[in-house]
């Protein structure tokens, strides 16, 4: 067990190294560099001045020296300066990360609130009208692209019905920290969270439904019934205990999907989080911000997957092959 955890953790190190190398080389491949993007709007800067600036910033060193600097600083939490925002990347991200975390946790919570009961109902009463309805809904959730669905939600609820705000994360006229402030935040969150969660239910519902249907037919469940255990207890004690545990472990695997989702959701609902910042920075060629964002997202996904693997191996010993 301990061996598995240790080995799984060690695999992370080369993964993170390769990730950082890929991102660094990608950033190098992007057109222009830190100097050109910071002086883009200033026609008075001469090529000589730009060259001097490059020398000073170390941009003329060989790539591996630069890579070493970048990784060394990044480990200490220093991702350099944003050129369009004229402030350290770290503080820029700090101002936004809360919103994205709020959005992502919101989506996760709502997803499970919807998916777990529906999955259990569909699995327990297979082929009932409720099951058919849930399967149909799940099929829509699988097939619908997130950005199309979010746009339609925005159009319907914000523009036609006017129930929810059109964009942003909070009404700026409200005083920070007041009760109204929190209400306003929640109001702004509802639509993006619902849009994300309604589609994200797919995997959990399908997993739960299939797993319950499989477990229902296992001999140990039949034995429990034969002993006279009441039907509701068969489910709570015997079936659900087995089927629900792995769901907790899938959390870490969701991170990759959440990152991609937050890009679309934040763009559509003009929600000031990391996803929106990413798109703005790519458009503004603000490479230090872009690399920092990809690096952080990648690290989150790698760590999340590792945690999921480990939790899953504790929950389900069959996975622990070494």
């Amino acid at each position, binding site marked *: 067990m301990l061996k598995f955890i240790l080995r799984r953790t060690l695999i992370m190190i080369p993964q993170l190294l390769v990730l950082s190398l890929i991102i660094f080389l990608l950033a190098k491949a992007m057109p222009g560099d830190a100097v050109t993007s910071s002086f883009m709007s200033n026609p008075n800067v001469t090529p000589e001045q730009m060259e001097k600036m490059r020398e000073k910033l170390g941009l003329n060193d060989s790539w591996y020296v630069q890579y070493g600097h970048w990784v060394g600083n990044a480990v200490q939490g220093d991702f350099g300066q944003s050129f369009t925002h004229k402030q350290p990347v770290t503080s820029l991200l700090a101002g936004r990360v809360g919103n994205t975390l709020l959005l992502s946790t919101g989506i996760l919570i709502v997803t499970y609130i919807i998916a777990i009961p529906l999955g259990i109902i569909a699995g327990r009463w297979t082929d009932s009208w409720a099951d058919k309805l849930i399967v149909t809904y799940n099929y829509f959730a699988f097939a619908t692209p997130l950005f199309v669905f979010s746009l339609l939600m925005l159009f319907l609820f914000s*523009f036609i019905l006017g129930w929810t705000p059109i964009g942003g994360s909070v009404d700026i006229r409200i005083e920070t920290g007041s009760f109204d402030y929190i209400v306003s935040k929640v109001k702004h969150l509802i639509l993006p969270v619902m849009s994300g969660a309604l589609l994200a239910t797919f995997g959990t519902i399908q997993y739960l439904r299939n797993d319950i249907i499989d477990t229902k037919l296992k001999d140990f469940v039949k034995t429990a019934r034969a002993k006279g255990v009441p039907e509701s207890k068969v489910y709570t004690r015997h079936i659900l205990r087995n089927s629900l545990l792995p769901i907790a472990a899938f959390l870490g695997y969701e991170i990759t999907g959440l990152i991609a989702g937050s890009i679309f959701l934040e763009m559509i609902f003009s929600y000031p989080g990391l996803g929106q910042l990413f798109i703005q920075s790519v458009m503004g060629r603000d490479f230090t911000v872009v690399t920092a964002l990809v690096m952080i997202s990648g690290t989150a996904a790698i760590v999340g997957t590792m945690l999921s693997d480990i939790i899953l191996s504790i929950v389900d010993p069959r996975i622990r092959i070494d």
Partner: protein
Amino acid sequence: MVVFNEKELMAKEKMNTPSFVKTIWREIRNDKMALGSLILLTLILLAAYLSPLFIDQTALTRVNFFNNWKPPSADNWLGTDDGGRDVLGQLLLGTRNSFTIGLSVTLIAGVFGLTVGLIAGFYGGIVDNIIMRIIDFLMVLPSLMIIIIFVVSVPKYTIFGFILIVSAFAWFGKARLIRSRALAERELDYINASKTLGTPSWKIMFFELFPNLSSLVIVNMTLTLAGNIGLETGLTFLGFGLPAGTPSLGTLISYARNPDIVQNKWWVWLPAALLILVMMLCINYVGQAVKRASDARQRLA
């Protein structure tokens, strides 16, 4: 030796073993939703691919500011956009582009994923281990972000470049799927038999192993086709998709990044959004039918 008409015999035996295509057709015919989806999808695609016959392409790209933001009318059934261009025409052209690109990505990623999966599954051992470690890593990458960075860094950006970039991130899952089935399949004796008969490994992979996995591949391809169309339109929507001048369904929807257009000029983006939704649902419905057909075939074999 008995004299017989071999062509006739061959045809007779082919009849006895229903092909996969026939099983799929039987499955779809018996499922009204799938049949409806297939018909609707065929109609949409026919309209999109035949549109150049009755739509003047140059008129479609000509900017006419006196005619911009016109709501639907007899002249322009779905109104016009900011440059006075006909939305319906762009919708058809966009459908064609989006579908072609989605299909190309599916095929390229499919062939690559299939090859990698077959190699990992057929050889097993260290080869499999190395390939799977790499795929595990690639799967956790924030691929949407990396695709976007690629799109802005490629110097001479073309449609083909876009297809390659997206394909490069679309094959992992397929390779993993094929690999796990191939690993199980290679333990069967017909693969050993081929080895003892002196058949080269690549031939065993593609002519012995692959036909036994083909229904799996077809099912997976239909289901990912929808996803790939969604990915292309999504990227185009964000502004990192097809090069300017190549309309996609995503191009029309990207007008909706402006709240004024979302609310007041819905005819520009809403039809495209609904069309994508309908296409995705249709493709998936057909895909589910294909999946059932392949499961049924598995039970028979």
